[in-house]
């Protein structure tokens, strides 16, 4: 038993390093996607203290809109622009209808409101686009679909080009986002709002504008995530479950930290794959991916209650 837990998995890893690399790569790709969703959460949480549960359904909604528009005969790149317009419309509507009347309410109320948004979007998406699984328009968007075969140490390592594209696009997106937040006027306004609402308001930063902007950026991230994940697994409401995966990523990385979201996402993506392949399937009957990330995050939190990169929690009476 102890042998199965402590020795055999590592022997397996080193006897077949190419397979280990393959597992790590798969984990990395899903980790990137978790990180992207977590990024959407973090942006909204930082600027408004809203725990946005709707980020997962926004991913589904963006992907469905894209595919649905293309099915109506619109050229692929115009579809992307139109979807962005839809996400902007969604951001404005959410800010006007839901957030504005709820400014200043306790966190849990705003959290529930985003679950309300989630339910609404699920219903709306099902009515407009139908519930069946759809194929993402990967080729039409110019994403290569071949795979690269490497042979490290005489083994076999298969990298799908669309996964490589996803990794590159995600990296570019993160760099662009960091540049936007750190170098532009708007980005500074977002960070100011995150630091102190009232101080930001008193120097003339518009809460409403920034909220629309932040939700729109979250929408853009959702679209990118939707394309990348849809290319791997198709577009359906099952995608929504990956939103739950972003939650332990947030815990691990800290709710306020962009770095935390990325590092946490990659860590969880790779570790859960490793655990599933080397411990979960042989010892526990498999499918451990549903809870492993949560338990890992829980254990980390017991030692660092604010997550790995979160702001230090200072409490006063």
């Amino acid at each position: 038993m102890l042998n199965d837990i402590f020795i055999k998995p590592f022997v397996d890893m080193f006897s077949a390093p190419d397979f280990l690399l393959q597992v790590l790569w798969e984990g990395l790709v899903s980790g990137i996607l978790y990180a992207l969703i977590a990024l959407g959460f973090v942006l909204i949480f930082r600027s408004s203290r809203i725990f946005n549960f709707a980020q997962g359904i926004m991913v589904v909604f963006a992907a469905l809109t894209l595919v649905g528009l293309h099915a109506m005969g619109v050229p692929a790149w115009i579809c992307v622009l139109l979807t962005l317009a839809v996400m902007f419309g969604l951001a404005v509507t959410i800010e006007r209808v839901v957030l504005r009347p709820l400014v200043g309410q306790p966190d849990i109320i705003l959290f529930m409101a985003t679950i309300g948004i989630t339910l609404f979007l699920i219903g709306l998406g099902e009515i407009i686009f139908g519930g069946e699984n759809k194929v993402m328009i990967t080729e039409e968007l110019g994403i290569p679909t071949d795979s690269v075969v490497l042979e490290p140490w005489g083994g076999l390592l298969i990298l799908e080009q669309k996964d490589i594209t996803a990794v590159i696009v995600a990296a570019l997106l993160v760099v662009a986002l960091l540049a936007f937040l750190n170098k532009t006027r708007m980005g500074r306004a977002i960070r100011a709002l995150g630091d102190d609402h009232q101080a930001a308001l008193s120097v003339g930063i518009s809460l409403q504008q920034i909220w629309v902007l932040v939700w729109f950026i979250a929408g853009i991230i959702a679209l990118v995530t939707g394309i990348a994940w849809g290319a791997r697994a198709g577009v359906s409401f099952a995608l929504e479950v990956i939103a739950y995966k972003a939650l332990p990523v947030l815990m691990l990385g800290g709710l306020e930290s962009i770095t935390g979201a990325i590092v946490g996402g990659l860590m969880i993506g790779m570790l859960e794959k490793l655990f599933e392949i080397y411990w979960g399937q042989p010892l526990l009957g498999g499918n451990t991916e549903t809870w492993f990330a949560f338990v890992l995050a829980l254990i980390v939190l017991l030692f660092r209650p604010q997550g790995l990169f979160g702001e230090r929690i200072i409490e006063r009476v």
Partner: protein
Amino acid sequence: MLYRTAGQFKTSYQADQALFPVRQDAFLLAVILAFAWVIFPLMASEFAYQTLLIPILIYSLAALGLNILTGYAGQLSLGTAAFMGVGAYACYKLVTLMPWLNPVVAILFSGVFSAGVGVAFGIPSLRIKGFYLAIATLAAQFFLVWLFEKWGWLYNYNASGAIQVPNLEMFGVYVAGPQASSVTQYYVVLAIVTLMTLLCINLTRGNLGRTWKATRDMDIAAELIGINLMRSKLTAFAVSSYVVGVAGALFVFMWRGAAEPNLFDIPLSFRILFIAIIGGLGSVLGNYLGAILIVGLPVVLNTLPEALGIPISSATVEHLNIMIVGSLIIFFLIIEPHGLARLWALIREKLIIWPFPH
């Protein structure tokens, strides 16, 4: 006019602290109880039992359990459904291992198991707070549902992986299983829910309830005035999980008749959280109002198009339902973030001084 508190003088502290210091409240409650115990069973159809009466009671009980944890002790939990599952599976194991056991005793005892599991998953709450804790309770949610699926012993190694409620007898009458009649099940549920409600009201009014409220309002301050936070938080987890576990056992044994692991998945948790929040956090009455709304609404929405003669396919109706429930949640949060119970409190205040505005 009808709702005057003037003239009802209290001459002792005991009278002042009574459960219903206002005579009209006690009268109103008596009317409601009369309806629940006598009039509904005389009038209700099979459909009403199965879609409204029994589920509303069970959901209210589950929401009451959650409300103790979230509304009174301030610990946000998203794992309610998993604790219901623990109650249901524990009850299933109890009645299959010990068929001679009285089913009501089994149901009440199964809550003990979920209380134990609840305390185990409540331990992180001593260090983690707020949303971090909420996500930590999701760990319980996903882990326990996975366990229900993988641990064959829990469902007696059924081929289907689901638990099936056997016929259970109490004093010569079937109370659970395919042969039980809805009326008996309704009475069993009603009796347990009434009992639990009374218990919870008194717990939240007492010493324990006051320490919970102090913990909720500011835990550091509570600690400074000498409240043992560990005791306060863990008892909240224990009591809450006990009530939720009993609700889970009722959910399967008195209503669904069978259960698969994914029945206890996260949508059920959210449903109960909705009930607690729309009803009003930190209120006992609110759970019932919330359950009536959340359980009753889809039933009304399902029968409405047919009654009006609008031809819509049932799938569209279901999706419209989800949309409408989502928007109503937002609507109720906007008009009264403190829930339906607060709305009733406001109405009550207006009634006392009616017809004068001040």
